[in-house]
């Protein structure tokens, strides 16, 4: 079963961490990625730029309209995700619990099953 583990982050929360805590997050993600690769459960993982760098595209009267900034203004936003293929939801939850963000109040680790996927997965 495929699950998207979304990492909802809050820059204010991240900035309040000590350097050691920040380094531990980086190292924790690194170890998590290695473990997932070895078990054959990692499909891919991505981190996204700050939402201030996003733009929203709409088509009005046949022409594209581009607005700078995110679609939703919020304190928390999607910072990245892990796409995993694992046994069941229980396993996906157990994996999510190993992500360093899950141990930090104010950051959200969200597990959602994939309903449809297509396209080449090797990039």
């Amino acid at each position: 079963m495929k699950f998207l583990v979304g990492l909802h982050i809050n820059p204010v929360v991240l900035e309040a961490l000590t350097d050691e805590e920040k380094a531990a997050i980086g190292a924790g993600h690194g170890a998590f990625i290695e473990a997932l690769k070895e078990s054959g459960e990692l499909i891919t993982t991505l981190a996204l730029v700050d939402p201030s760098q996003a733009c929203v595209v709409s088509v009005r009267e046949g022409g594209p309209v581009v607005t700078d900034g995110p679609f939703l203004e919020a304190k928390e936003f999607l910072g990245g995700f892990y796409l995993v293929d694992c046994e069941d939801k229980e396993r996906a939850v157990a994996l999510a619990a190993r992500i360093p963000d899950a141990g930090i109040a104010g950051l959200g680790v969200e597990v959602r099953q994939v309903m449809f996927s297509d396209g080449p997965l090797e990039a």
Partner: protein
Amino acid sequence: MRVKGAGPLAGPVRLSASAEGLLRELAPQVLGGLVRRYGQFEGCQDAVQEAVLAAAVRWPAEGVPGNPRGWLATVAARRLVDEMRSDRARRVRESAVAAEAAAEAAGADVRVPGDCDDTLVLLFLCCHPVLSAASRTALTLRAVGGLTTAEIARAFLVPEGTMAARISRAKQRIRAAGSTFALPEGADREERLRVVLQVLYLVFNEGYTASSGGALHRADLAGEAIRLTRMVHAQLPEDGEVCGLLALMLLTHARRGVRTCAAGELVPLAEQDRSRWDRGMVAEGMALAKAALAAPALGPYQVQAAIAATHADAATAAETDWVQVHGLYLVLERIAPNPVVTLNRAVALAEVEGPAAGLALLAGLDGDGRLAGHHRLAAVRAHLLERSGEPGAAYGWYREAARGTASVAEQRYLLGRASRVRPGP
């Protein structure tokens, strides 16, 4: 003998379908023989894989050899010896292996009785209890089914690297568990056979899960599961559950052409054009289902096959013997208690006694934690409410069920039902 970078379909001449089928049948037998002799699952598998690639390249040009199994065994054994020669630590074993390989090559023309048993042992090994269900499935398709890692990755829609890591880890775990290449004994054998059947049924059902884009590749999985179950049935003709599972697969697969419409939407059993079911497959499935019921012990696959056979026996949905279907679900509930079985029985009961009786049975499932929030409960409730003439309530439950499913086709179907019963503004 190294063939690198050549897929089975590479080269100027393609392998004929019959030769490809032959390779798939022989590869696990050759692998089983090698593992039995040398005991190293991983090295043997690489060797057999290279032999298969060599065959795929050379047979189209040179013709299929008179003794294809011996040809593969010889090439694979040589390849294994090459590999062991390159490993200094194994120098001592070299001469013994070379002698074995020579003996293998010399005796290659003789088809040893028990070759198919090797395939069965291999299947049992791939379904080892230390592995997760996903790993058992992947390893079974790779080692026994003879699919390439790329093909398995495509079928399950994961990157090839992900699948390669999963298969490699599965082999390591089997080795770490200290498994020997032999059928488990006594009660262990019986238990392992149940796991084997579960894996085969999982592969079969995976072929029917339309939750991902590659629907075409997934249909092949159902065919592969049937092929492997046929092989197990040929080895264990007395086992009623093996027979029952094969019957269940055939009776289900016979409907594959009409279970979705051209637009890819699900067509429920009651609305399928039964004249377009695969009649040959139905006949074979019916005969097997009957044979399975004659076995001394009754298991869940035999009963499910009997239910599928009862449906297949009805020329139209209206002619379905629902009393029998309901009775069989009662038996299934007794031998394999499970809320999903009760859910299915509710559908049959509604056909026999009316929707109110079905709904009353569903009410008893509300407290079952195993089914809490399961979309099938909402879907069946919606269906029975619709039949009771309560479109408003049915509408709400169809929508609830649509929210809960992870299948796009099923969601489309449920939303379609919802809009059919939608109350006026």
